């Protein structure tokens, strides 16, 4: 006898028991009770979330952390800083022009070109809008830096050649 036949034989051997008369109504009320419990849990969860969220909203707001100045203020500060830098470079350059020991045509050509570009920037500085002014001043400082380097390099490049009286003879 295989296992399936044995199971069928044991089931047939069970005694006959009549079902209780209120079986279905009892099952129905038990299911309804479990459903109501799930709804209550859901309501409780929603309420607790609402309370938590409200509590967060009602907490006093901390002072905002200032990470940077407002754009316009920062822009104005940047322009002021660039203007100061530009003025310092102009002054430095004037001194360098007097101190350059050797000046050659190549360096002069480069300086002339940078001065030409600077003149075009300077032409636009008067009456420029803040955004444009910031860009123009940044460009001006960059060009002045290049001009200073041109004068510095002219001295360095030519330093290896020291004119002597023997050369002249």
């Amino acid at each position, binding site marked *: 006898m295989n296992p399936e036949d044995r199971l069928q034989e044991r089931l047939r051997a069970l005694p006959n028991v009549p079902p209780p008369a209120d079986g279905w109504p009892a099952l129905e009320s038990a299911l309804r009770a479990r459903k109501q419990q799930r709804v209550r849990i859901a309501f409780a969860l929603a309420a607790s979330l609402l309370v938590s969220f409200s509590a967060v909203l009602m907490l006093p707001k901390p002072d905002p952390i200032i990470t940077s100045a407002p754009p316009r203020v920062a822009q104005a500060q940047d322009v002021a800083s660039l*203007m100061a830098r530009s003025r310092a470079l102009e002054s430095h350059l004037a001194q360098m*022009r007097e101190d350059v020991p050797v000046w050659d045509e190549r360096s002069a050509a480069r300086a002339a070109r940078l001065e030409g570009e600077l003149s*075009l920037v300077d032409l636009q500085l008067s009456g420029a809008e803040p955004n444009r002014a910031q860009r123009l001043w940044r460009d001006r400082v960059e060009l002045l830096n290049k001009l200073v380097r041109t004068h510095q390099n002219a001295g360095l490049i030519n330093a290896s050649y020291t004119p002597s009286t023997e050369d002249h003879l």
Partner: protein
Amino acid sequence: MKLRFTLGAALCALLFAGAASAASTDKGDAARQREVEQARKELRDARDELARAAKELARATAKLEPNSPQARAFEFVTNPRRAMLGVGVDTGPERNGELHGVLITAVTPGSGADKAGLKSGDILTSANGKSLVTKKGEKPKPERKLVELMSTLSPGDKVDLEYEREGKNARVTVIAQRPEPMNFPMMDLEDEDLDAFMSSIPPMRMWSGDDAGLQLAKLDDDLASYFQTHDGVLVIKAAKDKDDAVALKSGDVIQSIDGSTIELPVDAMDRLRDAGDKEVRIEVIRHGKHETLKGKSPLKRLGKRKRVEIHGDEEP
């Protein structure tokens, strides 16, 4: 967009022509020479095309934003008769209900204003006899008055200025200049708004090897003792690019150029550059004797109408 494309195409042509020109100068054969000539012709054509495009752009900008700084710049670059003092300006300080003059915020190195000794921070109070002090709210504002004056200047015009520096008043005469180079490709083609008119690509140098052209040196004490003068600058190496150039020689001491005393190498080079294609008169000491030399400026590459700017990469 079409104009922008034209500018871009012309700039590309300029770059390629420039590269061809620079690469072939060292090869001396006839074929190469013809290529160089052809490249130069293309370069000139491309530059002319750029000039036409820039003028068109200048007109369009002036129409869109009349009197804007960019429109002024475009107008300046495309009008070869225009010159400038070489200052950036802003409203001067307010005193007793008045706008007291025009504050100089920038002085262009090498400009007429720079040569006349003006400095950033100076306050201009009058120009050509016209006061630059106005009541608050009055129009035009002082800096606008000066900008209007500057927009009428031609190269060589003299402008008498009164200014205030650290509480003291002074006068100065500034000669308006047209700075060179004012080359047309000086614009940022990547900038969609063209919100500022400036160079984005530095020109490539055209100098080869150790050829630095004319070289001038300051007279230190030893050299001054040898040449028996403290006045002037020493010619270390004379340029020999032009037959009609003034015949400077190594060992000459330049004492004056066109009547102006020379003390610094930088000033001497500026004078020769400003002369352009005009004849210059140079007083020198040669072999212990004073001599007067006449001829065109030896700075061939700096001549006003002869410079050819080729764009590429360059750092000093």
